[in-house]
């Protein structure tokens, strides 16, 4: 399976201590994406200019001459010829060049996940995230099954845009779905994420009807999706679900911007997306008035 990162000791990707496995590849192109390196399915080389010491190790390592050190010691990365072989990554002593992806087998991932088994307890475990982990559906299910067999609690963080035929199998091996419910307003969803339809809602209802517990995680992007229409949409969806525990609001952050730059892409991350306290409070108030359970209400 194609993985960007396995992050241990995650406290907020589901209950307890979790190991989060980030899958590469996503059907959506959210302009606020926090993990742009997980969008495209294939290998990409990230270049972090602040780490570069201009040593030129990459120049001699690259078989296609993609790297050059300019006249003022400035590193130039010509991506058009890059085949993602990773020779420059191995050579770079400063980790300025980084491969976004590694291929791993389910057993390899499992052995990483099991390293923290002593910390999971009854609640903690593994969370598959991304990207859209269910875009690599077969691989994701294989990993989930292996984790379940090893007694590890499983969660999947999903956009909801995945092949519905996975759902019956998913119900057998996932303990919690962290559902990124990006917008309730259809046209706006299409405009900002590229989603063609409401596959996410259909899948969610199907999962819910099979009894899979879920949490609605709602990204809050100022000037984009924070309005009464969306709040009402969240409440009405929440009310339809029998197994959704609560709604969590996740304020946008500009973390993705520097990664877009490192990937050599246009930076669409924008500080103006950051919601104000007031926007969040007003939005929460609508949800609360509708009787929608919010994450903070379950906290002491």
């Amino acid at each position: 399976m194609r993985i960007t990162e396995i992050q241990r000791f995650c406290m907020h990707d589901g209950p307890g201590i979790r190991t989060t496995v980030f899958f590469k590849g996503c059907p959506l192109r959210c302009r606020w994406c926090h993990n742009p390196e997980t969008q495209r399915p294939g290998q990409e080389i990230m270049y972090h200019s602040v780490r570069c010491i201009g040593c030129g190790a990459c120049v001699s390592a690259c078989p296609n001459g993609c790297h050059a050190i300019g006249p003022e010691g400035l590193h130039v990365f010509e991506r058009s010829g890059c085949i993602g072989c990773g020779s420059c990554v191995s050579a770079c002593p400063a980790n300025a060049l980084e491969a976004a992806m590694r291929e791993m087998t389910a057993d390899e991932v499992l052995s990483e996940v099991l390293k923290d088994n002593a910390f999971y307890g009854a609640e903690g475990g593994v969370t598959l995230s991304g990207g859209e982990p269910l875009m690599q559906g077969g691989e994701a299910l294989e990993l989930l099954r292996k984790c379940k067999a090893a007694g590890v609690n499983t969660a999947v963080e999903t956009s909801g845009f995945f092949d519905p035929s996975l759902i019956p199998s998913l119900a057998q091996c996932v303990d919690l779905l962290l559902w990124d419910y990006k917008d309730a307003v259809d046209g706006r969803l299409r405009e900002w994420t590229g989603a063609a339809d409401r596959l996410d809602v259909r899948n969610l209802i199907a999962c819910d009807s099979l009894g899979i517990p879920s949490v609605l995680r709602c990204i809050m992007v100022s000037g984009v999706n924070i309005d009464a229409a969306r709040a009402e949409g969240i409440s009405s969806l929440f009310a339809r679900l029998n197994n959704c525990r609560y709604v969590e609001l996740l304020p946008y952050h500009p973390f993705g911007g520097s990664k877009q730059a490192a990937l050599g892409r246009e930076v669409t991350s924008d500080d103006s997306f950051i919601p104000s306290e007031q926007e969040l409070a007003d939005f929460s108030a609508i949800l609360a008035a509708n009787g929608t359970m919010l994450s903070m209400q379950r906290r002491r």
Partner: protein
Amino acid sequence: MPGMNPELNEDLNYIDEREGSAYSFYTPKGFSRPVRLSEETRRFAYESLGHKYGLDTRKTDAIVLDDEPGFESLSPYEKYDLAVRRIAEKAPVRICEGEKLSGAATLGAAIRHVVPATYKGQTILPSLSHLTADFDRILTMGLGGLRAEAEESLERYKGTEKEPFARSAVNTLDSFEIWLERYVNALEEASAKDQCFAANLNNLRHVPYRPARSFYEAVQSIWAEFAFLRLCGNWPGIGRIDRMLGKYLEADLSTGAVTYGEAREILAHFFIKGCEWICGGDYGSGDAQHYQNLVIGGIDAEGREVTNDVTYLVLDVIEELGISDFPTTVRLSANSPEKLLKRTAEVTRLGGGTVAVYNEDLIIETLTGYGYPLKDAREFANDGCWEVQVPGTTDFSYLPFDSLAILQQTTLNNYDIEGAGTRFPDFESLISAYESDLAAYVELLCGGFNAAYRFGTDGEFLGWNPVFPCTAVSLFERGCVERGLSYLEGGPEYRIRSPHIGGLADTVNSLYALKKAVYDDKLVRLDEFLAILRSNWEDSEPLRRYMLNKYTYYGADNDEVDAIAARILTSFADACDAQNKGYGYRFPAGVSTFGRQLEWAPHRLAAPHGRKKGEVLAANCSPTPGTDTQGATAIVRSYCKCPLKRTVTGAALDIRLMPSCVSGEDGLNALIGLMRGFVSLGGFFMQIDVVDAAILHDAQEHPEEHQTLSVRVSGWNARFVTLNKEWQDMVIGQAEGGDKTFGGCGQCG
């Protein structure tokens, strides 16, 4: 609500909270501290943490003995006894407004760890620390019982070389009583004006002279002994306060003699009075660490769980006041009550690092493995810091050294070795040479203690050489009076000098870096590498970066490097064990730096794992800053691969977490999970620090030193240093919004 039994309501620690107080204590943003104590007690805490009583000690630094006739011709014990007598007679008596416990260590020089008495402008006697005194005997026998024992001892040893100590024991008890009498008199006066002191007066008329009859008397009795020891300049630890006090509280709750809330008030005063030496100002390592740790939870000598109402009341007090004294360590095990874990986590996440944890499953096994009887092993506490000892009968000190200096200066001869590649043709030859040098150093370190003993003509061990008088402490260490030997001269049951290896992670990382770069990957020849290190990486920045970034070091759960840590620690423990001669001291191994990595930094050379000369490197048994790239669970895993059953006096692990990381129910559960994992993987001692804005600023400037700092980003957490500048700024901004109050600053051991 007389005698409300908390067992009737599991959540009593939560329900008797009230709203609002005029006094607030440092709280990380996003958290709140409960208000349960009376406003009067909170005021007392506020003032004490605000240095009021610490500054009071500046008024009288020490008792002057210049006018004592013939002082210079007195014997050491006579000088000591006279000094203690005059201290008892003359030290200012301080009764604080509203205090529930009386007795105070009011002489400033005691805070500098000396007997606070001077002759011709000089203090004359050193004092003791790194021990936990015995408080069980004062609780059960009272001073009267101790006096009978001391007088019997004097009778027995009259005319022998033990007489001066035996006489000093009786004299010191006289002085203790003189000092107590002055408090009784002062309280009589105070009570005439203010009835609030009547209870203190009643207590002090009975204890510590006689055995304690109630919870309140028991707390006063422990406090009186503690305060007297500190008055005489010593810095004792308290030990297992819940084990000592639990039965008194249980009895009083059942009869209604005290309520749960009243008991909390009394214990709070114990903590607040414990802050009487906090003076504020810049003390380098902090102004509130006088080795006065206490220990809660765990099993007793018979193997029964100790955790009781006192345990939870202690946690209540720390939770509410964010109080840095007494630093508290919770003994956890696989069988710890669920509520103990939860309450420990709840208090820990309020920051300050005041609460740390032991894994008693491992520690008891370690101690019995080293030869301690099971009953004593089960009673372990510490030396007032975190080094494990059997409280009340252990003469303890530790012998710190820098293991990295041995590698750099001895084994690698300051990186100047003719024909280095021939000398060390493979990694095994290098690491073996280091192990030999380490063992030789340990032998040198421990061999110095032969001077402490007297030997017969055939080399047989006769006993200890006299050291300086230390009778006050000796009175409260089991075995001393009985044997007629002081604390420093063989009196206690256990006599420990524990070599403590420092710089462990950096030694291990250096060896691993050499293994990989020179022997496995053959990036560079040994002689070339040593020359580069000698030059402090001059013109070798790419190699330095490569060494920093391309290998994973101790603390990142890499089996290959962790195996080197295990090997070095095993060699070290073997070398320590080899020093045990069957008499005198024993030399169990331990791992620490405390703050010494700062002192060592200027004397260390560049290190092969990419470190430049002068960098401040690893603390205790923790990873080198910046190498802990996989988060806290990986650190615990690496640490637990060390042979911790060989580190008899302890190996400390420091974990720092952001407040945002442990917020909410998820964060609390994660913290509990971290503690559980620490226990089940076989950790020894862990101090979790929940850190705040100032640390974040530093992390921004020196990201390489703060790899483990995790922050809540939004719906997940990320390591702070992996965030970009804008985000770091925002997170710092959030952290800085916290309450601007003092306190909560726990000093790590």
